């Protein structure tokens, strides 16, 4: 069953049916049920009078799997097969569809989709099940306790009847407050590796609709000519050369003077007209620095006293503890700016709706932010702004910005029209690569002292970064005592028990817009922690796995889970027994409450060019709801991590981004990575993140493999720092 078929089925059913069972949460959080006609509920579960079940998915689907995961939770508790449940994306309504880990905000991020929805969606499915059973029990004149729902049929063990038969009666009942949830031993779908993705069918035959694929009647395409420098303002433009382009409509300066909106009848005309436009910029407040200067500033910062002290252990104390050390290791690390470059360039469409409202069609990651932004810019009350969430062609963090950047552009472009025609904003790949919102550039400096036995005596760790969260609406949540947690996470709160560890942070002034990028702070903290653990093990003459395990002892669950994935990855990856001509590197890291260890195996050809031959991964993410989706996320997270450290960086020359498209921001290619073997730790702990945690250990595991018979790479990307790849 495809999504399209299901949707048609639902619409048809809804129109024809007098009763549709809805189960969902009221704004106060309590479960509630009722008939759909006129019912003011925003449900998680819909059941048509014809028995078709639809899960309402509150998280957007960028490939990470919630369309399958949240649907699985409903299907499991309700008692229907995965084939007999459809899904649709929730409207923007933070009162009902908020991320329970984010507060009153509807959004996807931080690898939280399943973690925050696990109990909520199971309860919604279980409540629906109990209401249907209650209705059936009444009709059959039996006790509810004698009935069950199996594969979409209400049954007493002998007789059975389809759900459709009881939908009308069930919709008159109130939802139970505490529906019984299934025991793990009763699970048929949760943890079942054979459950397949719900979004596969439309994504292999061209029918899946991404925001880029929307084509509304009478729509205009708008592209924006932005300043190559952050902070520059438009002072004038000339479109004389664009007027001859067939399909070109007009251009207009955006009200914030950040660029010129170019309107055309279709995409190609818009791109061409933009090429033909000449614009004058006022650069007096524009960013004119180069990335070399940013790098120097970061390195200087980690060599000075940090602004923020994060540990009771001071730098002086950590230093003192290294007095008399047999070995002191010191490394300075540099991480460049990185673009997210999701496969689908950014795009969204705004159209006028009934009663003066608008609809935003978007692969919408964080509905609450653009919802508010559109309401403000277009001068509409919140209830006049609707959001239609469509498939997103990747994100890696890019589609969620604290300022709703591209949706704001679309709203500004729409506001400059008479609003009679839908406006589809399209970004090109060049817009994407040069458009800001990068993983921040970061430096670390670490000193580790080892005694004669090869044990750590002290660890002095300084980080300098441009803060992601400061100055955004997320500051209150993510910044405490001046410390942006996302700059240091992974060095702080590491499960390693390290003696005499000092951690300090210095913020550097903004140079460009920065943003969370798949695994956020862990993109650099895991690299540094795991490179230093490896270097320390090597200097101590100890096995890197044994060395790490000696800092993961004790009874703490945190240490045990980290140690267990490390041991599992080592075992499955034949740690220490690499085939002839191969080198292995290992890394382990906790992020988003999940524990992941990876063994990377590389070969070198006659010219010393490196190839990533094999990656073995062990993950503990609590209950594995969709094991195959988890494996896919580990595979993808590993590729994303390794691909970027191999070749990619964003650099600036006098404020202008030097890269522009894939040829100079080279994506990982199929030949760059061999087999990836993923092992999931069996667990009954609450489910934790999987979208991001595969990424952090991948790059240091590669770096550690390279360091076996090559350099220890402390500045990225690797190709600019002494490593060549096949």
């Amino acid at each position, binding site marked *: 069953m495809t999504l399209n078929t299901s949707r048609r089925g639902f619409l048809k059913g809804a129109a024809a049916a007098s009763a549709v069972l809805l189960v969902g949460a009221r704004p106060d959080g309590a479960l509630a049920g009722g008939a759909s006609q006129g019912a003011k509920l925003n449900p998680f579960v819909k059941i048509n009078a014809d028995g078709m079940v639809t899960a309402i998915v509150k998280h957007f689907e*960028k*490939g*990470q*799997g919630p369309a399958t995961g949240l649907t699985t939770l409903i299907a499991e508790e309700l008692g229907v097969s995965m084939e007999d449940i459809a899904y649709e994306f929730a409207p923007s309504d933070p009162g009902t569809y908020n991320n329970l880990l984010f507060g009153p905000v509807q959004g996807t991020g931080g690898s939280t989709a399943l973690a925050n929805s696990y109990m909520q969606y199971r309860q919604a499915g279980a409540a629906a099940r109990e209401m249907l059973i209650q209705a059936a029990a009444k009709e059959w004149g039996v006790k509810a306790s004698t009935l069950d729902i199996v594969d979409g049929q209400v049954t007493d063990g002998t007789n059975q009847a389809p759900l459709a038969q009881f939908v009308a009666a069930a919709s008159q009942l109130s939802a139970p407050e505490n529906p019984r949830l299934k025991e793990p031993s009763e699970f048929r779908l949760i943890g079942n590796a054979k459950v*397949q*993705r719900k*979004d*596969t*069918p439309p*994504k*292999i*035959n*061209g*029918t*899946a*609709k*991404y925001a*880029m*694929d929307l*084509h509304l009647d009478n729509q205009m395409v708008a592209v924006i000519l932005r300043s190559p420098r952050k902070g520059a303002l438009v002072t004038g433009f000339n479109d004389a050369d664009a007027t001859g382009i*067939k399909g070109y409509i007009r251009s207009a300066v955006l009200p914030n003077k950040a660029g010129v909106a170019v309107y055309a009848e*279709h*995409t*190609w005309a818009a*791109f061409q007209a933009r090429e033909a436009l000449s614009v004058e910029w006022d650069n007096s407040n524009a960013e004119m620095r180069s990335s070399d200067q940013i790098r120097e500033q970061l390195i200087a910062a980690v060599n000075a006293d940090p602004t923020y002290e994060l540990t009771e252990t001071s730098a002086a104390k950590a230093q003192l503890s290294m007095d008399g050390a047999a070995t002191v290791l010191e490394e300075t690390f540099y991480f460049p700016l990185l673009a997210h*470059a*999701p*496969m*689908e*360039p950014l795009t969204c469409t705004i159209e006028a709706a009934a009663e003066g409202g608008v609809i935003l069609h978007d692969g919408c990651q964080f509905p609450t932010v653009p919802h508010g932004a559109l309401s403000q810019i277009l001068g509409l009350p919140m209830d006049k702004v609707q959001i239609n969430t469509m*498939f*997103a*062609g*990747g*994100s*890696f963090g890019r589609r969620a910005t604290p300022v709703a950047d591209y949706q704001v552009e679309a709203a500004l472009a729409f506001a400059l029209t008479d609003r009679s025609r839908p406006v589809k904003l399209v970004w*090109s*790949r*060049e817009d994407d690569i040069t458009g800001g919102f990068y993983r921040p550039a970061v430096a670390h400096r670490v000193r580790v002292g080892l005694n004669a036995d090869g044990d750590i005596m002290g660890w002095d760790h300084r980080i300098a970064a441009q803060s992601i969260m400061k100055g955004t609406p997320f500051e209150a949540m993510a910044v405490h005592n001046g410390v942006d947690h996302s700059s240091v996470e992974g060095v702080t709160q590491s499960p390693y028990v390290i003696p005499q560890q000092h951690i300090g942070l210095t913020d550097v002034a903004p140079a460009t817009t920065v943003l969370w990028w798949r695994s956020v702070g862990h993109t650099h903290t895991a690299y540094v922690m795991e490179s230093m653990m490896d270097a320390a093990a090597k200097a101590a003459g100890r096995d890197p796995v044994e060395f790490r395990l000696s800092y993961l002892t004790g009874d703490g669950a945190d240490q045990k889970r980290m140690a267990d994935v490390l041991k599992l990855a080592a075992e499955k990856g034949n740690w220490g027994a690499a085939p002839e001509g191969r080198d292995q590197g290992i890394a382990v890291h906790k992020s988003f409450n999940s524990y992941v260890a990876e063994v990377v195996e590389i070969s070198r050809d006659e010219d010393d060019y490196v190839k990533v031959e094999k990656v073995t991964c062990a993950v503990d993410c609590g209950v594995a709801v969709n094991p*195959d989706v988890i494996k*896919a996320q580990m*595979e*993808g997270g*590993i*590729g*994303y991590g390794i*691909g970027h450290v191999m070749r990619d960086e964003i650099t600036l020359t006098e404020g202008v981004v030097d890269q522009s*498209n*894939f*040829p100079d921001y080279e*994506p*990982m*290619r*199929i*030949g*760059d*990575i*061999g*087999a*990836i073997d993923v092992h999931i730790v069996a667990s009954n702990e609450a489910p934790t993140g999987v979208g991001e945690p595969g990424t952090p250990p991948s790059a240091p595991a590669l770096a550690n493999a390279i360091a076996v018979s090559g350099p220890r790479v402390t500045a990225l990307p690797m190709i600019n720092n002494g490593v060549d790849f096949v």
Partner: protein
Amino acid sequence: MTLNLKLNGQTHQVEAEPGTPLLWVIRDELKLTGTKFGCGVASCGACTVHLDGEPVRSCQTFIEDVEDAEVTTIEVVDQNSVGAAVQAAWAELDVVQCGYCQSGQIMSAIGLLTENSKPTLEEIDDYMSGNACRCATYQRIRAAIVLASEKLEA
């Protein structure tokens, strides 16, 4: 200019200026959106279609150059045995994540298996190197091509 475009077995009269990439005619004029815009410079392969059975990047194929050719897009590839086998393998192994590049991946995979029904892993990597996947579904793409090859042999 008006020209005839033979696409998916039908002839369409389309209106487009010379130099217009085939991609935008397919997407914006014919509204077949399975063929994706990813980079516009033939670097990512998301826009891959078949021109007389051969994979080409439609973002760098110009409309005036295809008038005598037969264009095939993702929407109809299940109509031949190789296309159906590739799609079946993609479904079986749940290759997709975000899915945005997968039309192009499938079009290239069909091109590969049409000219080489039993490719080695090296041949797969070589042939598919122009199709980027930012979700890095590469190992499943490789496995699905091997599986499709086996399906075609059976």
